[in-house]
């Protein structure tokens, strides 16, 4: 070994010994990946602000303003005009190739820009236009941008939904009293990809579309054809959809060819390095081929997926990126790396690293609240790995391992990963997953594959084989990637504030934070038994959940009218039936995310103990203390804090929490109806992202001891930070009392582990034993932070030295120093569990 190599090995070893994984990554990755990683523009927000230098790409506004003002647009159905506008954007948007990059395609006119979709939300556009961080690149562009935003307002999903929503519904959407936002105010969606079909080559798909158009035109226009109203009516209903699909597919293929030409121009006219020249010519070759043709090599697969995913994001901002890359890319990877060995493992790793960096590079403009909810992450882009495949075999493979190795080298917040765990999972993949956690990345989260497959079958009526194709549609909710299973948007565009039901029950439907009567008058709590108070909580939750669902059902009608030609083009059923992505009816995978769920039930346990059982306080006294936010009642507050708490395997409180799950399922969730073809009710998915800090100022004082302003519990079924006093097994035993198949759609458990305890092979074995216990208890999710407080405090003190330090927030990972102090503090406050 040469001295330089020896020194590098020594330095790498030292970083690992000192658990300085971020410095290890910097030295261990190739110089190309190091350059690309450092050259990337992160699109995550810190608090509610984008990072300095980030700008909005308004190119879409310029084009849509023109296209929606043409005579054709006044006559054409919305979807056709929408397709024409998208096509013109793809034909005219400036494109670029980043130096040293081998995977091209970006959503936006420059790498520091977020592309704003003009048909989604005018309020988000206004927010971007007026942002104090000056997101408009050139001052002289302001007049036309302003005029274009005003012009496009009536064509936006938001304005069209607002037109049909009631005043109360609009107020509730705007104020976040019991749920945050709603789909029409978010300017983003979470659409799933149909396995196989999406990667089958868009030339084939286009040929099918052309055939269908020809058939429909024959029905309508063939001279001498017998009149047939049902057939003609059917053709008329489909024809414009197919025409819109054709427009966007052709535009996407032209857009890819623009990259092909650009790469060739640079190679032939500007590039002086022969190796880079060759790389550019290879980029040119691949972009001339994909996504028109199906990929045949691993490099082609990565380029195909990146191009097609990016094109989809020109249509609508995507807040998530549901993917199963170790299955989608496996045939190409296996052929190149394992069978034919035309691609070295190192080069495959480098390409994978760049693929992750390209995904991390994407971001979409978000409303202010959403930026806070996802502080530190442009996603979450949760990619599922492993799991049981439709044929019953293990889905983990060498590509799963390569992706996890790449994740440790690039250390990006998104993509983040969901490892679909089952007892027969490949050991090497599990070990790679543990290494990621040990490196402090906070991912992958570990998902109970069988529970989630069963849950999908229970709530959505998805057949077993199709349920096994699941990817994470958002942070935690699985969605099948099949012809009848894929979803155009997450249902959960409004996320309810679960514990608000307890607060409203305590104040007879009055919201003490907003000073408004928003809930039903369920009665004076001072005159109630504990059971009656419980009933009142359920009644309050009914209104919270049902209102969110109804608004979503209504806004779905608007989505049908607008359609999504690009998304529809990747879905077999749309191509076959001529329905757009929103007109077809998937099995149904609907849910409302429920933020801050457990705080309220801990509060109920404290009331049961101190008011109803021990009678130490009266309800009047409790209400008085809550009214003043416990000010002057610190001794009494601590009494309530010391009452039994969730996460300690204490049946006193656990029974209350489980009862809350079961009653809400039976009385609130199951009676709902959505558009799914075989769905059952509309479930909740308790989890938090960063809502546990954001909602700290939306949820008032409660009898669990919280004050207005305090952060809430950090996961869907996590105990309160620091309140799980009896160790990791007690936490699992509490959480295992919930039925994870039928009582909710998915749930989230955060745990912190000791990095010093889990060193070496022994550490892996300890962790694996813990995972086996977790699996036996049939808990659907668990994720880990494995960074010690010493490091976290040091990073707070000297953030410049820890810029690459990552942590798991809740449902996503983020760079620690990119979080605001409050969120940082909440992560430090979580108990470190010793296994």
């Amino acid at each position, binding site marked *: 070994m040469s001295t330089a190599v020896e020194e590098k090995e020594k330095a790498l070893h030292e970083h690992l010994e000192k658990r300085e994984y971020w410095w290890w990554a910097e030295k261990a990755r190739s110089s190309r990946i190091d350059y690309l990683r450092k050259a990337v523009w992160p699109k995550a927000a810190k608090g509610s602000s984008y990072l300095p230098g980030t700008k909005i790409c308004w190119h879409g506004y310029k084009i849509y303003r023109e296209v929606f003002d043409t005579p054709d647009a006044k006559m054409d159905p919305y979807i056709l005009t929408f397709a024409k506008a998208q096509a013109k954007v793809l034909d005219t948007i400036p494109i670029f190739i980043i130096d040293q990059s081998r995977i091209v395609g970006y959503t936006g006119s420059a790498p520091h820009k977020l592309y704003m979709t003009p048909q989604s939300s005018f309020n988000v556009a206004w927010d971007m236009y007026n942002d104090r961080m000056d997101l408009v690149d050139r001052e002289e562009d302001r007049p036309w941008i302003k005029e274009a935003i005003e012009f496009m307002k009536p064509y936006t999903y938001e304005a069209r939904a607002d037109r049909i929503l009631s005043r109360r519904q609009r107020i509730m959407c705007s104020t976040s009293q019991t749920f945050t936002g709603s789909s029409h105010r978010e300017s983003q969606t979470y659409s799933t990809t149909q396995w196989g079909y999406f990667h089958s080559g868009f030339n084939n798909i286009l040929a099918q579309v052309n055939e269908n158009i020809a058939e429909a035109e024959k029905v309508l226009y063939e001279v001498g054809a017998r009149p047939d109203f049902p057939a003609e009516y059917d053709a008329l209903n489909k024809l414009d959809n197919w025409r819109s699909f054709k427009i966007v597919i052709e535009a996407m293929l032209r857009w890819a060819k623009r990259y092909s030409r650009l790469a060739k121009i640079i190679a032939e006219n500007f590039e002086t390095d022969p190796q880079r020249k060759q790389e550019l010519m290879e980029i040119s070759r691949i972009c001339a081929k994909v996504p028109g043709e199906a990929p045949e090599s691993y490099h082609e697969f990565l380029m195909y997926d990146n191009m097609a995913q990016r094109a989809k994001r020109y249509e609508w901002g995507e807040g998530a990126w549901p993917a199963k890359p170790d299955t989608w890319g496996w045939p190409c990877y296996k052929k190149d790396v394992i069978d034919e060995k035309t691609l070295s493992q190192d080069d495959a790793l480098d390409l994978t690293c760049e693929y992750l960096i390209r995904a991390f590079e994407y971001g979409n403009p978000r409303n202010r609240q959403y930026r806070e909810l996802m502080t530190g992450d442009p996603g979450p882009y949760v990619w599922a790995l492993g799991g049981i495949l439709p044929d019953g075999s293990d889905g983990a493979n060498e590509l799963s391992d390569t992706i996890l190795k790449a994740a440790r080298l690039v250390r990006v917040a998104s993509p983040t990963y969901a490892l679909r765990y089952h007892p027969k999972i490949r050991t090497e993949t599990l070990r790679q997953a543990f290494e990621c956690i040990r490196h402090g990345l906070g991912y992958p989260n570990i998902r109970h594959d069988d529970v989630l497959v069963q849950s999908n079958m229970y709530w959505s009526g998805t057949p077993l084989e199709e349920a096994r194709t699941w990817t994470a549609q958002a942070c935690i909710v699985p969605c099948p990637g099949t012809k009848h299973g894929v979803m155009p948007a997450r249902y959960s565009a409004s996320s309810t504030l679960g514990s608000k039901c307890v607060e409203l029950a305590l104040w007879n439907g009055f919201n003490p934070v907003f000073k408004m009567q928003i809930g039903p008058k369920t009665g004076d709590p001072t005159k109630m038994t504990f059971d009656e108070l419980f009933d009142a909580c359920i009644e309050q939750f009914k209104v919270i959940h049902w209102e969110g669902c109804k608004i979503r059902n209504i806004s779905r009608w608007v989505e049908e009218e607008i359609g999504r030609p690009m998304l529809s083009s990747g879905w077999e059923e749309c191509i076959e039936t001529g329905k757009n992505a929103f007109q077809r009816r998937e099995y149904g995978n609907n849910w409302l995310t429920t933020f801050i769920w457990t705080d309220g039930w801990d509060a109920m346990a404290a009331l049961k103990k101190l008011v109803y059982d021990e009678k130490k306080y009266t309800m009047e006294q409790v209400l008085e203390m809550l009214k003043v*936010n416990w*000010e*002057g009642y*610190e*001794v009494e507050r*601590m009494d309530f*804090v*010391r009452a039994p708490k969730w996460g300690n395997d204490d049946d006193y409180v656990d029974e209350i929490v489980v009862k809350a799950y079961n009653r809400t399922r039976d009385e609130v969730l199951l009676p709902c109806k959505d558009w799914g073809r075989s769905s059952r009710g509309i479930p909740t998915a308790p989890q938090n992202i960063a809502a546990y800090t954001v909602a*700290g100022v939306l949820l008032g004082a409660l009898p*669990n*001891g*919280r*004050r*207005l*302003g*305090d*952060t809430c519990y950090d996961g869907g079924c996590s105990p*309160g*930070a*620091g*309140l799980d006093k009896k160790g990791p097994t007690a936490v699992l035993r509490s959480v295992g009392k919930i039925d994870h198949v039928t009582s909710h759609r998915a749930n989230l458990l955060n745990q912190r582990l000791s990095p010093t305890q889990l060193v070496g092979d022994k550490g892996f074995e300890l962790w694996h034993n813990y995972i086996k216990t977790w699996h036996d208890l049939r808990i659907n999710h668990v994720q880990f932070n494995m960074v010690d407080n010493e490091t976290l405090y040091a990073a707070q003190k000297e953030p410049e030295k820890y810029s690459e330090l990552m942590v798991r927030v809740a449902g996503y990972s983020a760079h620690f120093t990119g979080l605001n102090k*409050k969120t940082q*503090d*909440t992560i*430090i*406050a979580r108990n470190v569990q010793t296994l």
Partner: protein
Amino acid sequence: MKCEHCGFEGTKGTFRYLYNTTLDAVTAYRECPKCFGWVVCNELEEEKKEKAVAK
């Protein structure tokens, strides 16, 4: 209590309550009404002191 940033003195209640990282901690962050700086407050101790003064 006293603001460590600007020296402002007042009762605990005059400092706006911000947050507490864990419910069982007696210390919390409050905001100085004068300079808006964050001040760490031992809720229990401050309350005891204020109650003693009131007597």
